[in-house]
């Protein structure tokens, strides 16, 4: 499915926002968060460009599962490193182990529900960190209120993941065309929420 001009515009804006975040939005942070956010927003940037070039069908490629894991894992690692000092090493290990698990279970011809369960666990934990941590910090006053927008981005990334999993399931609850029409706007909203949240937080 070729993206409509409006979808292309949404994807281009999302790519530009992600590029801005990599180049300017994370200046002055520690090395690990900078690396983690660069990976997260970098993958988002390249993914948006490829969606513009190749069309939305690439979302049905098996590689997307692995690539889409990188974004929440790296963003959540950056957040934990910045705001939960005691959890830095355990969470880094979780991220490394989680990513390897996804790569291995998606590369081997495994049967049963194990790959799906592991994917849900890794995505679920990373997604909850991105959603809850900024929201709680903002609510407690430990961060400025605008930081809650990062949590909103986390919620949107979760919604995007859910829609993608519907697509992969083959018999989506929401029609395939609707999902493909919504995703570019969702990607833009998600990226905008992240960028605004980091800028205002």
């Amino acid at each position, binding site marked *: 499915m070729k993206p409509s001009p409006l979808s292309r515009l949404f994807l281009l804006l999302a790519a530009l926002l992600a590029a801005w975040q990599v180049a300017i939005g994370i200046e002055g942070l520690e090395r690990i968060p900078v690396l983690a956010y660069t990976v997260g927003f970098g993958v988002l940037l*390249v993914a948006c460009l490829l969606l513009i070039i190749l069309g939305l069908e690439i979302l049905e490629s098996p590689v997307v599962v692995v690539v889409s894991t990188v974004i929440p894992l790296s963003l959540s690692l950056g957040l934990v490193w910045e705001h939960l000092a005691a959890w830095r090493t355990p969470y880094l290990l979780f991220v490394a182990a989680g990513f390897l698990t996804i790569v291995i279970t998606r590369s081997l011809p495994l049967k049963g529900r194990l790959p799906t369960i592991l994917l849900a666990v890794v995505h679920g934990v990373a997604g909850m960190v991105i959603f809850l941590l900024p929201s709680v910090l903002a609510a407690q006053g430990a961060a400025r209120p605008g930081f809650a927008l990062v949590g909103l981005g986390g919620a949107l990334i979760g919604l995007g993941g859910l829609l993608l999993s519907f697509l992969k399931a083959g018999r989506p609850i929401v029609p395939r065309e609707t999902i493909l029409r919504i995703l570019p706007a969702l990607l833009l909203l998600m990226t905008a929420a992240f960028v605004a949240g980091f800028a205002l937080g």
Partner: protein
Amino acid sequence: MTKLRLYLPLIKTLQTGLLLATGLAGYLSAHTAPSGWILLGVAGSLFLAISGSTVLNMWYDRDIDAVMNRTHHRPLADGRVSPNEALRLGLILSALGVGWGVAMSPLYGLVVFAGLFFDVVVYTLWLKRRTCWSIVWGGISGGMPILAGRVMAISQIDLVGVLLSMAVLFWIPTHILTFSMRYFADYQAARIPTFPSTYGFETTRAVIALSAIVAAASMGVAGVMIGVQAGFLRLMAVLSAGLLVLSFATVFRPSERVNYSLFKYASLYMLASMVLLAL
């Protein structure tokens, strides 16, 4: 207006635009106080010289274009523009471009002329129909606008300028070789030796991946030497990583889709890198 509409495809506007962007980025990469007039001169002379060499290339290759599906509708190939008219146009544009360049600075003009010479004489007239290695000379020619821009800014050929030229030279296979795989049948029909027809697809993909590594490394090192800000270097690294991933995907997961995406992405990569170097 009708003539102009016919002439526009002869200068391959997108390709000329991209090469022009590299030239302007080369000039701005020096981060000297930019002069509007010099910038205009660099843009004008490079546009004329690149356009001129492209028209001369099309003039000479009109027989090839006529038998290739992708190009048979071009104005020269289908007879809407006569060969003599195209030759005159190409020579005039080239002479104006090089002349303007020499008038601005002899060394700058020499580099502009070198680009034109390598493209028209070495690549098009001499090697293109003989060996697939002609693309190396085409690549060297492609690296001349960025070197020329840099030379105009600092009045000498320095290591950064050479690295930037190398980046363009080694970037070209990610663009041209993916193209020659996509239009393999066309090139076969025209009997033009290409890497895929000479060494096979597998070797071609390996060459693409290796050249992407060198291109990205050259661009990165040049960026560091220029003193590009850390954030822009990060962004450059992200874009280079995308180029490398796609290049390696053509080796390990070859498909028409991956090949096409690399072809398209490579252009975006070059344009974005030029913007970052210029900032």
